[in-house]
């Protein structure tokens, strides 16, 4: 079960539109935050010298590899996170069904 679907189910129909807008806001905010933290991290790891005001070729290459790696990393963690979440979700439902509170 999609975790967002679970959250939606708990909300009265008339309010779902509002919740969808909140989700969208959150996604924009979150991708901007991700962008910022990506810049911060790759700058920290790749730029060491301040004898010039422009990035040299090595620094530029390093930033590109760093950003590419981070995005792949983040995507992979995303897949695992989804799996772990839905495992937990179905265990929870089984438990509730056994306790007879899941009518």
């Amino acid at each position, binding site marked *: 079960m999609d975790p967002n679907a679970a959250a939606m189910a*708990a909300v009265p129909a*008339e309010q779902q539109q509002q919740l969808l807008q*909140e989700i969208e806001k*959150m996604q924009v905010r979150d991708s901007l*935050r991700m962008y910022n933290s990506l810049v911060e991290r790759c700058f920290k790891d*790749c730029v060491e010298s301040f004898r010039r005001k422009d990035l040299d070729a090595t620094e530029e290459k390093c930033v590109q*590899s760093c950003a590419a*790696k981070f995005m792949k*990393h983040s995507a992979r*963690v995303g897949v695992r996170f989804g799996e772990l979440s839905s495992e937990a979700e179905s265990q929870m439902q089984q438990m509730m069904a056994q306790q007879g509170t899941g009518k």
Partner: protein
Amino acid sequence: MAQQGAPDPAMAIEMAKQEMDYRVALFNAMVSSCYEKCIDKRYKDGDLSVGENSCIDRCSSKYWQVTGIVGQMLGAQGGMHQ
């Protein structure tokens, strides 16, 4: 998740928002923690190595387990989580 007759729709929205905020924060913490533990910072190229990939899988799994242990302790202690 503990919706014992909470009829107030504004409250329901608020709870759903906090649930999502929490999940996003958990995911972000997992990304950055496993990045620190698994990724070679020399950045020779932009691909993940075989070793990095399997480290990420195990790290995600262990991180999730830590979440469970801490959640249980906090729940036992004061019922703060749910």
